[in-house]
Structures are given as C-alpha cells and as structure tokens.
C-alpha cells in the first residue's frame, strides 16, 4: 500500500474549482513530482493534503488512515510537513525561531535538538547567522531555511511547493542537490515544480497537471522522454 494516497480529490475556492478530480499515490522512500503551469492546481492539492483547505469531494489516505477530515496541526503530527509556496517564512523572527516553529508539534526536546543540528549541518549559513531575522537572507538562503523548517518536524512525508521559484540557476541546482540528499537519506518527498527538467531528473515518478486534472502519469524517466512533456515543459521544439 502506498504511503500517501489521494482519491478523486476535488477542491474549490468558493465556486471556482481548482482541482477537479485528482488521484495520485506516493510510495515510501520515493520522490514524486507534480508538474504543471500556473493555475494547474498543484499547490491547491498540497494545501488540501496538509489540511489547510478542506476537499469538496474525495479522500486523502496516509499510512492506511483517512486524514482529509483532520485539522492541519494533527496532520503535521502524523508526519506530513510542508514547505509552502513562496516559502512564507516568519520574516521578522530569527532563523532559529523559524526552525523551532517547524518543530512546534513535537514534545521530544532531545530529538528537536538533534534535528536542529542536522539542519544546521546541511546549511552552514543558517548556523552562522542563526540569530538574524529570516527576512534579511537572500532568496536561496530563505529557501534553505524553508526546507529546513519543514524538516524540523521530522516528517515521514515532506511536501515542497516550488522550491526553485525565483532562484538563480546556481541556487536552483544547490536546492535540487539538497533534495537529492534528503532522498538518499530515505525521506519521502512530494515535489511540486514548474522547472520540469530539474524535478524529473530527481524524481522517481511524475504527474502532469493541467487545469485541475491529471493528464499524464508515468515514471520520471519516461516523462523526460515523452514528446508531449518535452514540448510543453522542457522547451524542446
């Protein structure tokens, strides 16, 4: 059974349906990516999985239990963490406070301390400037912090919403390498991206969304070779 399973999910903002019946599955240890242009419904799907907006129809199952009726904080406690779109750091709070907020749902002080060291180990710049407000950091550094903050809940499933958004190519590379490292540590990742090339070269599987529906779903390698994907997202003629 898959770790995360989404069945016929429909989500609406008022009367506007953003997601019109999506089904997807993430296996333990996999990196799965959701591709698509703006407005395809990728972020909405993530928000719904993490309980920030309720679905209209459909179910979300995590480790064999239904979670689509649970409030967001209980879902975090079950082991799903999200680095939201646009990073949404607490800009006036220090790096360390941001990271500790990522661990808000945890009670094990020792574990939090260990994970704090782990995140600082991954991103050295965060350690050396840990008392500074997050808003003073560069875009790439803020993205590191956003990923680190999501990692602080020690999640079983990490959902990253467009981590490369607004970053320089070099920074994008660095962030993608970090995601690769997390993958090799065995973290299960659901990755939403517009940068299809970068995402597919990391992922095991990929889903392509268009206006709220899944139009393609295959292994990442196959998608990279698929003509339609190449034309629409990879800029090939």
């Amino acid at each position: 059974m898959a770790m995360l399973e989404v069945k016929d999910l429909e989500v609406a903002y008022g009367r506007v349906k953003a997601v019109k019946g999506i089904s997807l599955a993430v296996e333990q240890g996999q990196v799965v990516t959701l591709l698509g242009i703006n407005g395809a419904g990728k972020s909405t799907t993530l928000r719904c999985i993490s309980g920030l907006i309720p679905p209209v129809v459909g179910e979300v199952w995590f480790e064999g239990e239904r979670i689509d009726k649970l409030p967001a904080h209980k879902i975090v406690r079950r082991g799903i963490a999200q680095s939201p779109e646009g990073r949404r750091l607490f800009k006036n709070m220090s790096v360390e406070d941001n990271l500790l907020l990522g661990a808000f749902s945890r009670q094990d002080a020792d574990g939090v301390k260990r994970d704090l060291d782990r995140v600082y180990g991954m991103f050295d710049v965060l350690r050396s400037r840990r008392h500074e407000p997050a808003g003073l950091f560069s875009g790439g550094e803020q993205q590191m912090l956003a990923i680190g903050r999501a990692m602080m809940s020690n999640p079983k499933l990490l959902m990253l919403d467009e981590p490369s958004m607004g970053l320089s190519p070099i920074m994008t590379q660095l962030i993608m390498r970090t995601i690769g490292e997390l993958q090799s540590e065995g973290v299960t990742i659901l990755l939403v991206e517009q940068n299809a090339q970068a995402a597919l070269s990391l992922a095991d599987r990929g889903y392509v969304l268009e206006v709220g529906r899944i139009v393609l779903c295959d292994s990442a390698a196959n998608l990279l070779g698929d003509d339609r994907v190449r034309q629409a997202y990879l800029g090939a003629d």
Partner: protein
Amino acid sequence: MTEKLLARAGAVRVAGVVAAALGLVTVLLPWAYGKTALDNMTYFFGPSFLQLCYAILLLVALVALAAKWFRGRLGRFAKAVAWADTAKAAGLGAAGYALACLVAIAVQNGGLVMIEPGGWAAFGLALVTGGAALVLPGSAKPTLGKLKSPPWVQILAIAAAMAVVLFAAAYELNRADIEDFLVFGCFAVAVVVVGRAAGLFGWLSLAAANNRRVLSLAAFAVAFAFPFTQNGSDANMSVANQVLIFAATAMGLNIVVGLVGLLDMGYIAFLGAGAFTAAVLSKSAFATLSVDLPFPVTVLISGVVASLLGLLIGTPTLRVSGDYLAIVTLAFGEIFRITMNNLDGVDGPNITNGSNGVPAIPNLDFFGFNLGQVHHFLGVDLGRQSNYYWLLLVVIAVVIVVFSNLAHSRIGRGWVAIREDELAAEAMGVNTFALKLLAFAGGAFLAGMAGSVKAYRDTAVSPDQFVFLESAFLLAAVVLGGMGTIGGVLIGATLLKLLPEKLRFFEDYRLLLFGALMVLMMRFRPEGIVADERRQLEFHDADEELAEEVEEDLVSHHSLLNPETDRGAVA
C-alpha cells in the same frame, strides 16, 4: 583651503566652549523677578535646582566640545563616545530647556518683563553652544554599545541608573506647580536625548541584557522604595496605584494585541469582570454573594471568572479576524457594561445592584495588618494608598513574570508566528484556534487579577467605570509603549494615566492632544516608544539602513552574550 577650513572649525569650537563656560556662570545670576517663578530663581550666587539642571546639560556640551583637544589622552571608554553628536544634543537641549524655563516664568509671573537678564543670557549662550556644535562635523556612530566592561561596572551602572530614575520620578511627582512639572519633564527628555546621542543608552541596554536578573531586582527595589519619597502624602501614591492597575491590565492586552496580533477593543470588560467578582464576594454590606474567603483565593477566582469570560467571547469570535474581531470585541465590551447595569433585580437577578454597583468594600487585612490604616515605618507615615501600592506591586510582578515566561516559551513563539503569518503557522502544525483562545483566556486572567485589587483599592465598583474609552486607552497604552514589550507597555501605561492626572488644566483638550499624539507616533515611530526588534523591521520594511543596523546589533549582542558558542559555530 583645507587649512583655512580647519582654522575656522577651530575658531567655532573655541566660541562654543567659551559660550558654554559663560553660560555656566549665568546660573549664579537670577533668572526671574518674583519668588513664585519656578523654584525661586531670584538669588545671586544661589542657583536653584532647575537652574542646576541647565548647568548639567551645558557642562556636558562643554566637555563634549572640548573632548576633541584631548583626543590622544582619552581612555578606551571615552573614545567610544560620539562626542560631536553629544555636544549637539546637549547644547541644543540646554537651549531648549532654557527656553522652556523662560516661557514658564513668563506664564507664571505675567509677561516677559519678569525675566531677568540672567535668564536671557542663559538661553542665548546655550543657543550659541548648540549652534557651534551644529556647524562642526558630526561624529561616527557611537561604539559604546559594543564596549566590553567588567560585570561589577555594569551592575553598578544599573544601580546608579535606577537610583537616578527613582530620584527623578520622586522629584517630578512632588512638583505642585504644573510649570515646574513640565520644565523638569523637558530636562528629563533632554537627558534621554543626550544619552542616546552619546551611545550611553546602547551601553546601558547591553549591560541590562547581560544582567537581566540584577536589572529586574533593581527596578523592583526602586519601585518598592517609592512610597518612602512621599513624606506620608497619599496623593501621588493614588496616581501610582491607578497606573499599576492600568499597566497590569494593559499587560494582559499586550498578550492578545502585542504577541498574537488580535485587535481587542473591549478589553476593559475583563478588568470589570475581575473587579465585580471580587466586589460581589467581598464583605461589603452591599455584596450580594458575600463569602468569607482569603484574599489570594478571591484573586484567583476573579482571574478565573475573567478568563472564562474570555473563553466565552473568544470561542465564537476568534473565527473571524482583523477588523471584524475588533468590531465584535467592541460590542462585547459594551454588552458587558450594560449587563452589569441590568443585573439589578429588576431586569434580571440581583447580582451587581445595577448602576449603584457595590460600594463600601472594606479594606483588606493580612494577619492584622490593615491596609486601610496609616503605618509608621522608617520615620515615614505610610498611608492607605501606599499599602495598596505594595500589594499592586506584587500583582504587577506576577503579571510581568507570567508575561515574560509566556512570551519566551514555545507557546509564545507560536503566538508570534500567528501574528506574522497565520496560514504558515497552521502549516507548521500550530493549532492556531486553540492558541488564540489561550491568549484570550490568559490575558483576561491577568486583567481579572488586577480587577480584584482594583475593587478593594477603589472601595467601590460600578458599571460606569468600564466604558469604551477605557478600552481605547488600554489599546493606546500598548501601541504607544511598544507592542509585545514589557518596558514599553509599562511606560505607555504610566504616560497615559499620569499625564491626564498632572495636566488637569488641559482636561478639556485631553482627547484632542491624545489624538494628535497618536497621529504623530504612527507617522514617526509606529513601533512605539520601546521597539520590539521584530516589530521594528516590520514597520520599516524599506529602510535598508535600519535593517543593517538591527542585523549588526543582533550579531554583536549575541556574540557578546554567548561568545563561546558563536566562535564554535563559525569555526
């Protein structure tokens, strides 16, 4: 060319120093005709206290101007002072102060003719000193704040600063004449400005951060000693008690507004709930529920009742946010007052005696120590208000400890996260609804506690004490002082209760003045008098310089506080 400029600068400096020296002589002259002018400035060779204040400012300006000539011989400490800026602030401050004196004399004694030449000379010479400092080149940012010093120096400095504060507060509050009060207030402001310019405050705040416990104890000791400066008079102690009750309530509101960022416009209701609970339970002949309880239990019950009310109002309303919450809480505040009016046995059960309220609440008595009686201690008569002052001091200490522990806890971090970005906080696993509710209940508990003491101090509780205007002033105290800070809210509460009390002649224009003050604050210092580090960035988003400054401060602050851990991290 540059030589010429240098020579001219040298001449200006000499002129400034000479003017300052001459200015110092003017305090030996009379400034006014008529003994009633300020604190009697009519003697030759007998400077009055307010004249000496002028001399202090001018002396600082003189030293600061002359410091350039002794550059090579200055110590480490003196080198870190921003002398040129100090001279500027002190010189202009002295001029402003002298002007305030002249105006006060003219107003008090009926016209400018009442000013002696000495007064005019004092003003003119200070102006020359300040002007000279103004045209001379400014100094670099003071580095005093980054200077390391032995702990005993820091502790001594804190103690000295506290003693100065106690003396100044006692002197200021004991002024009977409004002119004296205002003129000395000008002096206090000038001293603060000069201290900031010199970098002394940066150094003091670092010393305070390093010795937080010493600072709190010293502040508490000063507050404790305050009644002894009153010579048995209860007038100022009564004002001080109002300030303390107001401050404790504002501190509760500070949780809701300052930390969580929820706008509550009906907060006075929680103070009222506490006050009514204590009154109804008291041994007053008019109490409807009179139960013989020890006072600490009454305090707890009052707090609990207030926080239950907080839960009651919070549960439905915390689902709306922003402006809507403000409107709902405003209405709630009014509903509370009207309900208290209606619980009179006619429109409902008789609990509060309606608009009569509960009068004649007897004084508290702790093991035979009756708070209503005058006690003689250390040669000073300590009246009823002094006794309640000490009780309130305990309450405010509890409130501050609770607030600061909450603010720095995991819960406090969650609160601030909700204020900054509620959706992101939710995504991080913060149970936003429960935390907001907790803030409502917790803040209300503090206000309820304050209310129970208020009931006994005022000896009467009635619904008309809890009008909307009071809620507005509470909110103003928090915003004016500095949202989310402890010191700021204490200062804000003091200003808002003390000034109306002292500036009685201004009563008709009180709200006008207050409105103007708020507009000016929002324009020039939206973060409040005491700025929370996080807030300061929030309000000055575009200000790169400030961002850098804060960054620098934070780094130097933390590396000084924990030098070892930081060195380890960099290596």
